[in-house]
């Protein structure tokens, strides 16, 4: 597999959360099927009421360990886009939340120690290269590094998610079979 992604940079104001922010917190069952515009009003409310009011487009969520654990829910990832969150970076990310995020083209990264170097409201930059995920606290200058995205995910990231990739494959198939 020779697919390459260039350097991607996300920068924005940080909203900090603790450990084990689970998908019931991100996407409460009660509101999950009411559509993303309704769901976003309730995202995180079990730990921070009216979170959506604090978010400006491009902001970054910085969290502790095991972000996105619990039930597997597409809305728990997709609501982030609707809220305007540009990237999520945590000390560690639950496996499925990570896989979902990549598959949906919503950036989720793990960078151990990030929760220790970022405070609420700091300006944060996440730089994703082939070698590492580099997180810089622009406000303080502190830095931490995470492992790069597995190679198998790169073509997905490049295509902007799995659906775009499948669509392209289907179209290719249609053209070659007709």
């Amino acid at each position: 597999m020779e697919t390459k992604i260039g350097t991607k940079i996300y920068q924005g104001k940080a909203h900090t959360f603790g450990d084990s922010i689970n998908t019931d917190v991100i996407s409460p069952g009660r509101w999950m099927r009411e559509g993303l515009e309704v769901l976003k009003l309730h995202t995180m409310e079990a730990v921070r009421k009216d979170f959506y009011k604090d978010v400006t487009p491009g902001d970054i969520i910085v969290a502790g360990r095991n972000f996105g654990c619990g039930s597997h829910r597409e809305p728990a990832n997709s609501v982030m886009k609707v809220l305007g969150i540009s990237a999520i970076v945590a000390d560690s990310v639950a496996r499925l939340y990570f896989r979902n995020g990549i598959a949906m083209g919503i950036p989720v990264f793990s960078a151990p120690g990030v929760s220790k170097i970022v405070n609420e409201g700091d300006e944060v930059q996440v730089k994703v290269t082939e070698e590492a995920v580099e997180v810089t606290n622009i406000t303080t200058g502190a830095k931490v590094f995470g492992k790069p995205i597995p190679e198998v995910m790169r073509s997905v990231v490049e295509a902007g998610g799995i659906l775009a990739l499948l669509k392209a494959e289907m179209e290719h198939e249609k053209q070659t079979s007709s």
Partner: protein
Amino acid sequence: MGRTMALKILARGAKKKEVVPGEIVIVDVDAVFMHSPDYKFKHFEQIGGVKGVFDGEKVVICPDHHHFLPANQRDANTVKYIVEQGKRYGVKYIYGPGTGIGHYLMVEQGHVWPGAIAVGSDSHTTAYGCIGCLSSPMNFEITEVMLSGKAWFKTPPTIFVKIEGTTKRGVSARDVAQYVLGQLGADGALWSAVEYGGSYIHSLSVWQRMIFSLLTIEAGGTYGLVEPDETTLEFMKGRAKQPFEPVYNDPDPEYSKVIEIDVSDLEPQVAVPPQPSFTKLLAEVVGKPIQQAYVGGCTGGGIEDMRMAAEVLKGRKVNPDVRLLIVPGTREMYGQAIKEGLVDVFNQAGAVVTPAYCGPCQQLCVGNLADGDTEIGTHPRNLPGRAGTATSIFLASPYTVAASAVEGKITDPRVFLS
């Protein structure tokens, strides 16, 4: 050092001789479980030109979360859409209302077998490891798996939890599994397989083993395995949808970590809010008043779970300030409970028995909690926001849940067991 069964199953699925932990492999899957595939069918529409799933025999749909019967018109429309689209794309097995919880059905109806590779849209799809099937949750990517029959996995290291001894009276498999989960912690098994073994595990039925496999996800694990034994093979007789070859560990398999536990002196355990892995001694929370009690869910709807609850409830009454719900795991389990007279015991005790489905675990159908309510249940998860925002949920064994329902407060069940 030998290879673990997880690596051997993945190597077989990828048609490779050897794989090492950390390698990315693409494997053929034997089963795909879907609990609310409406999103996936919408993906099919977005992609365009999709004619059908990769193999109609291998994709199973069971809308168990929302509906033993839809609670409102929106859910009714969703179920209708799921069934219509499932048929349109050639899915053969679509389980209807009252058939039960998908995870139990996948095993009970033989959609998975020892050595199979399965994925499921529900996070508790680590469950089928109880028969030595490599099963793992997958969500958004299932759209791709449904079309290609292939999935990628990062081959895992395996943590071995060796459990020995015999439990004291009134201490059940749920207490042991709850204790193990507490030892692992919420992210103690992240990106790992967990294998459960030792004489205690192999003394359990397949359904009681499933509690361990299923709760593995609450420690962040990718798979929760039990090596097949005579109990497994006896259970599988005449059940699997196709002939199979089980996969076992090599002698002296290479584990990343070994945790040894002796259950001989273990006391009843409980998970306290706000996480399934927050395990405490039951004794620490005894006396807390409850408003709802629930025996059911994919870690408590089995026939043995209902037997335990009935043992406590026989000849006793549920406290008038408590709602007790009994929700069988599958129609077969429900039928068995009727045959054994358990449903009569529940009814006379003043419990509510519902058809088989996921129950109020996620509060998507019936049994919702009011603000400020406390619930104790046998289900797998008590995360904040799951069942309302201002509620508090404890998880425990069927004995403990039934005893707490009788007393109206969290109670050590051993006072009711002779």
